[in-house]
């Protein structure tokens, strides 16, 4: 195993998962299980390539990706919050609609159902080699990574500060934990949920942009490869808290990077790829098991003493 390039490979695998996980985490704190991260990522990746292809400008492509993912998130917000659709079904519907619309555009506009490969595509900014050599361990890992990777790492403390150190974050958590209590405190809970979805859109947009723009510079319909769901698994495994979610993402990114290499050792990659999903199930089960054996303090709705 190549020990020199492994850290960089882990980071590369981790970044999209981390962004997807944070996207799912923000909505989870508003009590929304966001299964549409996958679709938002896909739309962002497609938009990035399509806009970059037309404009030849990396910044436009990047911005368009974020806007597109946010738009998708707000479609989900309207259909669930305004029209009362179920979050799971609507989220899965968004995924079908996203991949369906993209395929439709690929077939109809680009005449290439297999994907979108512009001949030239603008590069985004990557950290130059040696720029961070003064930082031990992390420095060399980050060198050569895109600025989106940097944003992803900054998003961990940022989401922590947002959730636990701002009034809006407190309102969002209150909305997720006890909607009636939040409403009675004058919080507009629907707006909080729409905001959570919007932030989720931004983060999923970053994830999609990273997938399409970091190195590949092309779009494939199966490009997101379930990373939205791995991110969801990471969030659930990390119990919806930023640091634990990030740690779980790193772990899953490590599995991914190692999985690629383990094939050389005849260990089937499928079992490695399975780990995030198994970890989510086992993690949740373990958390519930501990809660049920510990005899927790009475739930707040319990009126009997």
């Amino acid at each position, binding site marked *: 195993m190549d020990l020199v390039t492994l850290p960089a490979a882990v980071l590369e695998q981790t970044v999209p998962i981390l962004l997807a996980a944070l996207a799912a985490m923000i909505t989870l704190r508003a009590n929304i299980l966001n299964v549409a991260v996958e679709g938002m990522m896909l739309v962002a990746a497609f938009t990035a390539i399509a806009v970059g292809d037309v404009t030849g400008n990396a910044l436009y492509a990047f911005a368009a990706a974020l806007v597109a993912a946010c738009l998708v998130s707000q479609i989900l917000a309207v259909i669930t919050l305004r029209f*009362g659709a179920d979050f799971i079904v609507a989220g899965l519907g968004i995924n*079908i*609609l996203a*991949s369906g619309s993209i395929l439709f555009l690929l*077939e109809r506009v680009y005449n290439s159902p297999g994907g979108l490969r512009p001949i030239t595509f603008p590069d985004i900014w990557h950290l130059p080699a040696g720029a961070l050599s003064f930082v031990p361990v992390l420095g060399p890992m980050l060198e050569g990574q895109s600025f989106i990777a940097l944003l992803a790492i900054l998003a961990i403390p940022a989401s922590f500060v947002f959730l636990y150190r701002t009034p809006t974050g407190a309102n969002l958590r209150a909305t997720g934990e006890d909607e009636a209590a939040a409403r009675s405190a004058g919080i507009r809970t629907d707006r909080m949920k729409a905001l959570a979805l919007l932030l989720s859109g931004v983060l999923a947009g970053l994830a999609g942009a990273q997938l399409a723009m970091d190195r590949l510079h092309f779009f494939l319909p199966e490009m997101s490869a379930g990373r939205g769901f791995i991110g*969801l698994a990471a969030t659930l495994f990390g119990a919806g808290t930023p640091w634990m979610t990030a740690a779980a993402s790193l772990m899953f990114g490590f599995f991914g990077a190692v999985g690629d290499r383990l094939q050389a050792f005849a260990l089937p990659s*499928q079992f490695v790829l399975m780990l995030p999903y198994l970890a989510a199930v086992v993690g*949740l089960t373990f958390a519930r098991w501990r809660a049920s054996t510990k005899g927790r303090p009475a739930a707040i709705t319990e009126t009997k003493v």
Partner: protein
Amino acid sequence: MKAFRQLLRAVAAPLGAIALTLFLGFLLVASIADEPVLAYRELLFANFQSLGNFALFINRATPLALIAIGIVFAFRAGVFNVGGEGQLYLGAMAATVMGLALPGLPGFVLLPLCVFVGIAAGGFWGYIPAVLKVKLQVDEVVTTLMLNFVALLFTSYLVNHLLRDTTTYGAISWTLPESVWLPSIPGVPNATSAFLVAVVLAVLAWVLLFRTVWGSEVRAAGTNLRFAETVGVPAARRVIEAMIVSGGMAGLAGALYVLGTGHRFEQNFSPAYGLVALTVALLARVHPISALVTALFYALMLNGAAYMQIATDVPRSLVALLTGLLVLLMTARLRRQSSRH
């Protein structure tokens, strides 16, 4: 008579969402196609133009119907089973393994064995989230969703490493012995007789759910668990049983697909049948017979799209787009209806 009216209501309810989707789709087709009417005629009617087309249509509808009927059981027991896809894959894989492992057995022994292990594998995959939900209140949406990926990856491992037909290209298993192939529907060559199984099971499911004490107990547990306990229903057990049935039906769909249509396991044999079946079940207002009808409608659209693409310049992915639209429109309606209670 009352049961018929009840059924009519269940079937009629989702027609609005379907009509609206078809209308929006038509607007879309009209804006891009030269011959929108021809496109839509192909979409809706090409399935019946030849026996061959009709057989393909039946083959498409069968797994959808079987999984959706299974999901009806889960929903009626209050379990949101998103795991149809994983249960389907495991069922298909189990049947394949059994058929390839004991090719020497006579068909009348091996075929039931294949079907049985398919049901058992799917049922097992429904049992896990059910037990976790009942005993530890682990959210079943998450577990069924995550277990899908586990099942997909596991079957992918088996088909790539152990069962792979090395004479062809791609992740495809060896072909099953012909002794276990299901016959076609008499008079319709290549149409899987598994469809007849689905029809029988739809009726049976309706009887089970609405005409047996077991069914009323499942539904009591699904609508109000504490009420169910109070009136003497072993509620936890009923929920688990319903989920085993649900997973078993998806497993059966997988097994019958392999035995009747595919005759071997292909890694990507399902175009998200599990997920589409989930929406079929919801669209059918969680009613087994209406689920069968809705599955037929979906299959009609899915296959019709291919004919539409051949006959006109409308891409077949229009159907994926319409499916997504339909799911969104349908759930929006669903909630508004249930909030009236």
